[in-house]
């Protein structure tokens, strides 16, 4: 365990994508690895297909669970539009963005009033601010509600979660799931 680690993870997605589970797995993974960790999810109205976010702060960062905009070291997003929003609002210069490359169009985009966010827009903004980007996608999920675990698994493989290993994540999954669901999720995580 790295005693000096201070690490801010900002997560985002659309209500219904399972960001609550994602943040619950990560907070338990860091806790398993021996880190002081705290976080906060948005609840309430945002769960109805609105934007949802979760903050996670690792290490002795004081008691505040909320990350200040521009101070996240890592942004993890479950959807492309929200990845772009997360990067532009929360990620620091030189940070890391990892996102699941699916698109849930906003009403404005569907009505032709807003511009759709593309992979290229994310890349060019990332280049301007020295941000490393990882796109994750899997077309072999048994259930689309496992995108959150697929994203987690891809992100673990890219080593973006400073301070934790795949086994920390696996034992967090055991805290939260059981039976066939646990087996499926461990399978997707695939620690080897």
């Amino acid at each position, binding site marked *: 365990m790295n005693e000096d680690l201070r690490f801010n993870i900002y997560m985002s997605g*659309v*209500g*219904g994508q399972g960001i609550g589970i994602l*943040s619950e797995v990560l*907070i*338990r993974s860091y*806790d398993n690895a021996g880190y002081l*960790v*705290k*976080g*906060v*999810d*948005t*609840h*309430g*109205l*945002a769960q*109805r*297909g*609105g*934007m949802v976010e979760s903050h996670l702060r690792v290490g002795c*960062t*004081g*008691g*505040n*669970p*909320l990350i*200040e*905009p*521009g101070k996240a070291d890592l942004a993890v997003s479950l959807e492309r*539009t929200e990845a*772009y*929003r997360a*990067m*532009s*609002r*929360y990620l*620091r*210069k030189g940070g890391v963005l990892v996102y699941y490359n*699916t*698109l*849930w169009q*906003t*009403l*404005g*985009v*569907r*009505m*032709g009033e*807003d*511009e759709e*966010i593309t992979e290229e827009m994310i890349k060019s*903004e990332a280049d*301007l601010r020295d941000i490393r980007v990882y796109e994750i996608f899997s077309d072999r999920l048994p*259930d689309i509600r496992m995108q959150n675990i697929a994203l987690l698994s891809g992100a673990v493989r890219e080593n973006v979660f400073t301070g934790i290993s795949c086994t920390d994540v696996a034992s967090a999954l*055991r*805290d*939260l*799931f*059981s039976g066939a669901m646990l087996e499926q999720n461990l399978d997707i995580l695939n620690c080897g």
Partner: protein
Amino acid sequence: MKDIGRILLQKKPFSEIMMGNTALVRAMIEAGVEVITTYPGSPTPEIADAARAVLRHENPFYFEYSTNEKVASEVAFGASLNGRLSVVFFKSVGLNVAADSVVQFSLLDLKGGLVIILGDDPGANSSQNEQDNRHFARMAAIPVFEPSDPQQAYEMFLEAAVIASENMMPVILRMTTHVCHAKGRISFGSRPALKQDQTPSFRPEMGEYIPLTSAVASMKKRSMLKLEKVRQLAEISSFNYLIEHKSKKGIITCGLPSLSLSDLLTECANPPDVLVIGIVWPLPMELICDFCARHEEVLIVEELDDFIEKEVKAAAFDRRLSLTITGKFEPDDFIGELHSQNLRRFINSKWPELGLGSGEPASQTVPVLPSRPAQMCPGCGHRSAFYAIKKALKDDDITVADIGCHTLGYMQPYQIGTVLLSMGHSSGTGAGLSLFNEERRVVTFLGDSTFFHAGLPGIINAVRNNHNITLIIMENGTTAMTGHQDHAGSKAGDETGFKQISIRAVLEGLGVKSVSEVDTYNQKKLTASVTEALEHQGFSVVIAKHPCMLKLTRENKRRGIIPERRADIDEELCDRIKECISRFACPSFSIDKETGAVSVNPELCIGDGSCVQVCPVSAIGLGQKERGNE
């Protein structure tokens, strides 16, 4: 897999990762709380989830979802009169509903003690305002604890419960949204044995329980003496702490803003001293004035209103202290949550000399991002309803919204329900809008949980005075917006013993002449029913019903039932009219930005089929899910 109910019931001390709301239930178990009541409302409903998880294993307490916050408060009050330590909790604006009873609580001896947990919502994350309930506490002479994080919420609850039962009084634990939902590893104590004494101990002859006329004076004096006793405890509370940097400047703060502050002060070369207080009403004024006397300048950092500031300024004036006390002045100072970004702006505007940076605007180059507000879920019966109702309405008809998922009808593309106040307001507001108004018809909306909560008085008023309005009750069988809690009209489970109350029977019992009931997926019939109701002179009601599809889909998934169908678009038939997108607006439809072709997002569609009837050229069908075809 960890079972939160079992975790919360452990006998020995333990620690576990959980959110503030969940930790409060462990505090209740340790404190020996016997009765817990609530009406669901963000940010507090997870307290109920945790309490119900406990009840699946043991019954250390009684729990109920009451009809509204006032009834919930009264049930908890009644139980406390009999010697039961009781808890009532609800969201910020719930206190407005409960207030008529709650303001009397401090006048009476609540034998068992009563803790009121408030979920205040600075930033209005899920509320219609951001009212600061400390004002209510002062008016009602009730002490207030304000925790900054889940660990402290748990510890403060324990202390609040002791004060409440020892002094036979109400005590408020004022949570705010991001204290309710903050998560971390929390350390708990052991669980005491269950209290055995079940004797109902209410004795009216032992005290005064009728606060009327001449009795009020002595009751009020007793409550003020209790409050003074709590103030003395507040002075020496272990929740107060001082961070000294030997500065001439000092900051007084409390709650979550104290954590934002400690984040920001790490950037300061010469940080000010900081006094954090745990009990914010009554204020530990000796401690505060002593702090003021030792500083030349003091800044008050508190969320929302200038509650502490006004008190401190008055006390400093009384004691002839010579220092500068700075607080809120600009409108922005009173608005929103004091997270780091807002607090940075506040401190920089008051004390630029502290040298906090301006913060990092994350990006300068990004265009305006597409906004993503909350919306109705795929398959939502309300979407079908609004789509069908819109066809029965004229452009200048007036539509009144109420609180609930259907409030979202005000957004594009439906734009139905264009004025909102509070739970159950719609019939009253609609009645007022119908006066001196021969030209524009008035349609009001009401959710089913809200019908029971606060909707009935407005309806009875409309019946009695024969107001010319059409009420549409959006019945989905649950309290959906706050996470699917049952209400008085919800289907009664087999073993629960709850009674299901029929909305239609209530309306007919009240003598409403024009009542119709339509499943909202039957759009043609709903349009016809609303048209007919609008033609009726006087008060008419349409019950637009369909079960909450988010709830149903989740329940089905738990039972292993996965939808086999999903909507698909016949490319040959599709004329790109886009009725499904621009008027029906189910989020499952996507549009190809190059070709303009409409498609169905398989990640979102639940195969409900409510969209099929919407397409003028019948291009939407219901097919097998793609995966099934592969």
